[in-house]
């Protein structure tokens, strides 16, 4: 195609997109394929947003984002993890973690720089690295290690061109989490090789066992970590498009430069809603987390009992069961499941080759849907024998 840039020709549209097109043709489906909360944004947040519109908050904001929001984020990070970021110059409000990821990569990657990405991993990482001109270098995490990246796997991929590593715990698509002591070992490698760590902690609040460790709270990592987080998952605010990036002043200043010219600022309406969310959501957050945890217990037991072996995910809202016993590729399994039982899941290979042989089943659905989905799966698996 003559008008398309070479760079874009080098990236493929996501496997999820492909599956989405298939799903479109099927009526009455139920879905465990949705990567966002089933809860609607808590009413007090929606209400605060309406009020901000009534008062006429409709302008641009500072390129960095509304100062009050940045201050609240600084307070939260200090309170939750003991990390200090200056709201003036070390915190940037982005249009979702999606933009934050793009900004940090574009601000730091030179041609031929390599970025290590553990897989199965979130679908956007590889394309974003390529768009920034870098080289994605993937590592295959394994189910027998609960899909955690190991120091050995990481070290084995480090070359003189390695610039950064992207971490995402709790993880999409596996639900895997990493303990502080395990992350510490990765931090040591990063310090030794002078790597930048890009830590996408968007599911941090959805941690069901143990406590979440913020990567930048680890010894020596504050200045070598870009912390990405946002409102989408924990506050059920995916459609509002608010995220934030925190880190070293110099990197943030350069990310802001790109943001200023390409995004200008995040929508003020959504920023006002995020202010309310960070101020007054402890209760609604707790309720949602409790409910996800109940569903997590239900789905993990349910999947294992019908022969879809599934390790226990400790975070996010995903399970990643193995279909090794059924002699079908992930896509075949998912397509047949869709056609025969009208149940949508995401084939694991959409998240990298390491996801082949698995499915991603999200439990951000009501318990009724969950139970119905499990019985459809059981019927389907029963027929496969």
């Amino acid at each position, binding site marked *: 195609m003559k008008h398309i840039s070479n760079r874009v020709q080098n990236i493929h549209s996501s496997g999820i997109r492909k*599956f*989405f097109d298939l799903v479109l043709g099927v009526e009455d489906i139920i*879905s465990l394929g949705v*990567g966002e909360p*089933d809860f609607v944004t808590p009413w007090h947040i929606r209400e605060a947003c309406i009020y901000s519109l009534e008062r006429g908050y409709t302008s641009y904001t500072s390129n960095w984002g509304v100062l009050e929001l940045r201050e609240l984020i600084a307070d939260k990070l200090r309170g939750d993890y003991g990390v200090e970021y200056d709201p003036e110059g070390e915190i940037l409000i982005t249009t979702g973690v999606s933009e934050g990821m793009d900004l940090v990569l574009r601000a730091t990657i030179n041609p031929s720089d390599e970025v290590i990405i553990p897989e199965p991993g979130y*679908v956007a990482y590889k394309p974003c690295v390529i768009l920034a001109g870098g080289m994605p270098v993937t590592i295959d995490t394994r189910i027998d290690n609960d899909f955690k990246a190991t120091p050995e796997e990481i070290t084995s991929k480090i070359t003189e061109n390695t610039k950064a590593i992207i971490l995402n715990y709790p993880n999409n698509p596996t639900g895997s989490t990493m303990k502080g002591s395990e992350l510490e070992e990765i931090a040591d490698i990063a310090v030794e090789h002078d790597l930048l760590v890009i830590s996408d902690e968007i599911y941090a609040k959805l941690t069901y066992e143990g406590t979440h460790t913020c990567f930048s709270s680890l010894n020596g990592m504050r200045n070598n970590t870009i912390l990405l987080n946002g409102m989408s998952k924990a506050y059920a605010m995916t459609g509002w498009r608010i995220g934030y990036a925190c880190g070293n002043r110099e990197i943030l200043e350069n990310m802001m430069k790109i943001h200023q010219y390409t995004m200008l600022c995040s929508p003020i309406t959504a920023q006002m809603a995020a202010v309310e969310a960070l101020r007054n959501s402890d209760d609604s957050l707790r309720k949602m987390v409790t409910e996800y945890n*109940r569903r997590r*217990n*239900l789905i993990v037991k349910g999947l294992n009992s019908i022969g879809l072996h599934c390790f226990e995910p400790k975070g996010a809202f995903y399970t990643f069961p193995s279909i090794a016993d059924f002699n079908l590729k992930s896509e075949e399994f998912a397509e047949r499941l869709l056609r025969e039982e009208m149940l949508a899941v995401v084939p694991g290979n959409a998240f990298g080759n390491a996801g082949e042989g698995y499915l991603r089943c999200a439990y951000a659905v009501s318990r009724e849907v969950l139970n119905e989905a499990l019985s459809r799966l059981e019927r389907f698996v029963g027929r496969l024998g």
Partner: protein
Amino acid sequence: MKDDKTIEMLQILEEDARITPAEISKMTGVPEKNVSELIGKLERKGAIIKYKTVVDWEKAGVEYIYALIDLKVNLDRDNGYDSIAERISMFPEVESVRLVSGNYDLAVIVKGKSMKDVASFIAEKISTLEQVRDTVTHFSLKMYKREGEMLHKKDADRRLAVSA
């Protein structure tokens, strides 16, 4: 008795009375036997009063009329609020009775088949009680939320069926 597990059981049941002990067990990790025992205990203790269904009668095509009554009562040496409140509570037409702070004493909700029904019940059975000094009746015109459930509106699932 007020430990976290007990509270969790009650919260789950308050939301869905039909859920089975087996399911609660799967969701919470508490063994099924313990769930059943705990529920039994809560029932015997009266912490669980009853398992009921929230019905939108209007949707079912059955008409009911509700009235909210503010009651002022006279107390004497022998009778405090409890005796009059309990007396009013005995009528099956009465849905709820609360002692409240403010301009009146008891807040009563009455349910009946027609406006006439409800009005005559109040006039004949409530206003005539010796301890009742004054009543103000508000007929309910439309109900929006009951038992924590919105009656006329459900948030549709607007999400894409498959997403990253």
